[in-house]
């Protein structure tokens, strides 16, 4: 088998453009997902029962349905309730919603791993709820959850490929387009794999670095 690299070299601009969109949607989606997930996990800790049931339902629905279907709802179903979104915006929002359910579970597990007595000590010393979260819980929780956090971020990097079905011009959309036009599927798919591998390895490396950095005091 012979690889025809000219298919790639003649489309460098489009491929890099697609890669940039993949990066953009991924990073923005992860940011939304982390913030929303943290908010959900913190709200759950307040223990107000109707709110908790609602949040639980949200997490179950988002985790229990395919990302593809959620995107269809958001992009094609959105206009019927007056939600008209650009493809990229819908992609970022969709990824954020999808990620938030998983991040919420990661944060919840992290909060639960901190011994209750540490919060009681903070309470007795007069620290407010938010001070306790920020000064006592978050720093410790981050150490505990870095591995599962980077795992979820990695999974989301590959979910960006699904955005091509709602016409987001990201890496998978661009490359499969080139493949269909040139019939050079092998070249295109190999490039695609390397593209995602690059993202995943970058994230994994960053995750390990973060683990080593934030975990220093635990190793003493």
């Amino acid at each position: 088998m012979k690889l025809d690299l000219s298919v790639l070299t003649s489309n460098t601009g489009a491929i890099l453009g697609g890669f940039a969109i993949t990066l953009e949607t991924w990073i923005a989606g992860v940011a939304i997902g982390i913030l929303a997930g943290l908010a959900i996990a913190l709200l759950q800790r307040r223990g107000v029962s109707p709110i908790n049931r609602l949040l639980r339902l949200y997490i179950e629905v988002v985790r229990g349905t395919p990302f593809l279907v959620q995107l269809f709802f958001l992009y094609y179903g959105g206009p019927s309730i007056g939600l008209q979104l650009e493809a990229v915006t819908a992609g970022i929002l969709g990824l954020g919603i999808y990620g938030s359910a998983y991040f919420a579970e990661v944060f919840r597990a992290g909060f639960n791993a901190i011994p209750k007595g540490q919060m009681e000590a903070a309470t007795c010393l007069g620290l407010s709820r938010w001070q306790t979260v920020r000064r006592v819980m978050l720093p410790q929780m981050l150490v505990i959850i870095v591995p599962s956090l980077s795992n979820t971020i990695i999974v989301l990097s590959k979910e960006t490929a699904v955005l091509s079905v709602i016409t987001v011009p990201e890496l998978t959309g661009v490359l499969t387009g080139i493949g269909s036009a040139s019939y050079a599927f092998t070249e295109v798919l190999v490039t695609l794999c390397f593209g995602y591998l690059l993202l995943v390895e970058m994230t994994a490396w960053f995750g390990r670095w973060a683990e080593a950095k934030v975990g220093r005091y635990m190793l003493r």
Partner: protein
Amino acid sequence: MTTPEEQPLDARPPSAAVRARPVMVRLRGVVKRFGANAVLKGMDLDIHKSEVVCIIGPSGSGKSTMLRCMAFLEAYDGGEVFVEDRLLGYSTGRDGQRVRAGDAEINQVRRNIGMVFQQFNLWPHMTALGNVTEAPRRVRGMPRAQANELGMRMLEKVGMAPRAHAYPAQLSGGEQQRAAIARALAMEPHIMLFDEPTSSLDPELVGEVLQVMKQLARDGMTMVVVSHEMGFAAHVADTVVFIDQGLIVAQGPPQEIFQGEQHPRLQQFLQNYLERNAFWTR
């Protein structure tokens, strides 16, 4: 809350001198339930200024729950806890019913209470000094330099100044507990609550913590200590309170509790203790 039949017959009032001092914590008919199970069945107790009160009793008797109610770590279901004459944890709602007070109000009343836990509960991501200065800095808004100076003074007090920059994981159990005491002292409490402070320590480390507590007692701190250390209760306490099944069965000066005429349940409790701990004399 307490019915006359439940009122212990041989409960002795604290000695006149102690009783003449102002009351720091007043428990009136305090009831606590976990589900259908009443853990505290109506407790009355006055803790006076500079009094050292040791609470003894079998496990599951409600000692720790009672202490935790005094810090409102547990919300009591009936009766009243007054800290320096202010009702802890509740305020009167619009309809005259008692409602849980807001966090800020609870913190106001609880401000002068310091608590020491069985598991130390130091924050592992901060040094000993960091643990001690956290509350003065965040709650009192003390500048870092001043907080560090205060922190070092508190660590000095418990003999931990040389270990100020160590993390909890680098400290022995006794050192951790002493740092935890310094952390509570840094907020300058009027009352210190100790929840089995030596129960999770290796036997050879118990002494250093008790030493610190004795010094505190000598300095005139008002202390409530839940402990199995009968020696400490006998030598340091002004008042020993024996709790069984959610009720105060006996209270009085240590010599009365340990040597006086004893309630049958107290007698049994002390006999058990003696058999477990003083085997060499038998």
